[in-house]
């Protein structure tokens, strides 16, 4: 910290050559760092505990030690096997992949149409879609459960056992394959594509479909990545809906699986609970660090601009 530059609160120092002289570190700067470091430690402390507890024996956790006497790496293996993480992860990956594919297939054309195609009632329909963002999930939870139970029966009678929606992928994915938020996010982007591009493409004989496929989608890689990240995190974390529509292991997603593991299978084995939590967090962290920029951007787009 010794070479921290001038005193001026940050932004004003930019490009100010005369100030580039070594000065004693001002008190305010030290206070800032101290506050941030204390805050950062508070934010990190639960993670530290999580890691440390995940490496202890259960009696060490109960005894309230801060660090394990000897790291118990096999906890991870035990947790992985007892909680059947291979199965849970595979389920969540499958569910996420299907949801995201559907989401992109359905939302991209819709967003494009709302941004660039003129059709009757476009604004009214779009406003109606946006209005769905105001509806709390709890209102649609009960009717959706009733609908899905019924659709499941119908589909079962038509397609046989594998066509059921309950305890199967359709109930976990199809309701989430369209979201007003995604359509809104992508629409904002498609609306910014210059009209000239479309004119040029049209002269070359492009239809809306070819323009979307070969110009708009390749341009929209960044917002699509954002959508993907959000969809991934949403589906990785989803708990309430699976709790209602899934009752066996075949399609139990990871968040539900972990909750069940913590509440029943490992009710008293805190070290295993911690190890399982760490295992669940890792994929999310990897995705977050890879797509950090899009992620923050997406949060920002969804809020300040909207």
């Amino acid at each position, binding site marked *: 910290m010794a070479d921290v530059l001038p005193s001026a*609160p940050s932004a004003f120092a930019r490009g100010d050559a005369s100030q580039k002289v070594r000065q004693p570190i001002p008190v305010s700067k030290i206070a800032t760092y101290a506050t941030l470091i204390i805050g950062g430690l508070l934010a990190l402390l639960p993670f530290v505990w999580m890691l440390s507890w995940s490496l202890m024996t259960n009696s060490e956790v109960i005894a309230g030690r801060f660090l394990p006497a000897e790291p118990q790496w096999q906890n991870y293996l035990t947790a992985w096997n007892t909680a059947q993480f291979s199965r849970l992860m595979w389920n969540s990956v499958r569910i996420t992949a299907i949801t995201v594919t559907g989401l992109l297939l359905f939302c991209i054309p819709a967003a494009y149409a709302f941004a660039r195609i003129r059709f009757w009632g476009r604004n009214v329909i779009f406003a109606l879609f946006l209005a769905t963002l105001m509806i709390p999930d709890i*209102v649609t939870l009960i009717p959706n459960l009733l609908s899905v139970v019924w659709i499941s029966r119908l589909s079962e009678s038509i397609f046989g056992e594998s066509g059921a929606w309950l305890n199967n992928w359709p109930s976990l994915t199809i309701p989430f394959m369209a979201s007003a938020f995604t359509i809104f996010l992508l629409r904002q982007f498609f609306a910014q594509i210059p009209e000239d591009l479309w004119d040029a493409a049209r002269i070359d004989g492009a239809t809306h479909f070819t323009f979307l496929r070969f110009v708009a989608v390749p341009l929209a890689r960044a917002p699509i990545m954002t959508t993907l990240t959000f969809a991934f995190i949403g589906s990785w974390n989803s708990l309430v809906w699976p709790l209602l529509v899934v009752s066996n292991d075949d399609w139990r997603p990871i968040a539900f699986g972990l909750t069940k593991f913590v509440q029943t299978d490992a009710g008293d084995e805190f070290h295993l609970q911690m190890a399982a939590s760490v295992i669940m967090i890792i994929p999310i962290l990897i995705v977050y660090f890879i797509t950090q920029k899009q992620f923050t951007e997406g949060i920002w787009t969804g809020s300040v601009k909207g």
Partner: protein
Amino acid sequence: MATNTVSTRKSLQESRRRRILFENLTGFLFITPASLILLVFQIFPVGFAFFVSLHRWRRTPDEWQGLDQYATALGNFAYVAFFWLAVGVLCFGLFRLRTLIRHTAAHRVGMMVIIPAAALTAAVGALIAWFFTLLPVILDIPARLRGQAIDQEAFVREFYASFGYPEVAAAGGLLLTLVIIALLLTVLWLRLIRHRDSVQWLYMAWTSGLLLLAAGWTLALTSSEVNTVIDAAAQAGSPVPIWAQVLIIGAGTGLIGAALWLWQRTAYNQTSANRTYMVSILAVILLVVGGIFLIRELPQAFAEADPNVLRGFNVTVMYSAVSVPLQIGLGLGLAVLLFQKLKGKALFRVVFFLPYVTPFVATSVVFSLIFSHNVTSPVNQLLVTLGADTQNWLRESSGIFTLIFGDGTPAILSGPGLALIVIIIYNVWIFAGYCAVIFLAGLGGIENDLYEAARIDGANAWHQLRFITIPLLSPTTFFLILVSTIGTFQAFTQIYLMRRPGGFPAVDTVNLNIFNQIQRDSPNFGYGSALAFVLFGVILILTLIQNRVAGRRVFYG
């Protein structure tokens, strides 16, 4: 030559028309899949949920209950709310109608638009009636087929048979007749009145018709329900003054609204001091009278309400009122600190954002261990070090002030339960970083020149924060307040995961109450839906209030 030009123009027109049609078709084709899903799983469920809430509905549809379940949840206040909601919709519909009349006044037969619009409204009404007559019959198919092997033929046969049920067929016949009439009248209108705005007039008239229809239906339903209740109570020998409550609460709210309106008018109009003085006194009088009305009547209106629901709202409000200021304040502080030129800024940002990114399912496990009732849990160890008694934390439902000041504390002052406090801490830990990220985006939008100018004028860091940063951040702050309030009112996963025996009643928000109705062994979907709508209504009202109150103070630069 002449014929040639005419035919060219004709073919041009023809091709233009074809292109527009093609454009329309493409548009509809593109939005169809997403629209279908949103329609089935987002829009239709709202109507369906309302339908469910009007019925006794355990696992399968049962008898019609009207507003009874709302009355179970809220007591007589349910009738008051529905009555004034209907009146509000009615006024809005009439207002739209008035606008329409103004628009069409210039045109000789413009008002004729009422006729096709009324027919269209009736057709939509018939459609809804038919649909919700059909729905229970269709939902009942699995029950009717119980005992038989469910195969494709049986299900499809029952499905088709559903349309032939006498009540469904009657509603369907009415629907068909009304649709044909409405279509004929609409086509006639569009053919006869060739005005630039005729389609828009039709749309306006139609939407105001729908509003009036909804208002009329709700008013009729509410008043018949109220009269039934009054009659039943009179026969039982203990009359209930519901209409009086409706009037008094309506008047009280109206008076307070009028007082606030007067206040704002005087605040924004520069009139003479004398007049301002008079108006202020008037406003205060209105406020006091309105307040007295409400304070007298509201407890009586809520007297029969479900105590669980009231406690749920109490918990929700405490949860929200403590969490929101804390997380936004911390977020602002972090953002302001982080916005300076610092080493390791990116690292700090990631660290503060981490709690928001990691799944609740995982972090809640750690938090429930940190705040465990065990004597050796980290917080209890800290308490012992500080010389205090250990606490049960998540298993402690007593209010925080009861714990601090002893058992003598009156119940009304006991404050949020200790378990709720833990969940609030958890919530703040998660969302402070999120708020900071949003604030950072807002800070990035503030011009540097402003600070520079202020510094030249001798403003210190505090002045800069107070007079530049905070006012210019107000749109961001407003957004965050809105989102956080809605978020805390809808919070589910955090609370559900942190719920431990012993802490139950202190942490059960309305949302948790609703979920309890769904998940227990004998689910009560009807009551759950009614509660969900009550919560929805509260959230909407809060949003509106925040929009009005904060919206005026927000400074958009």
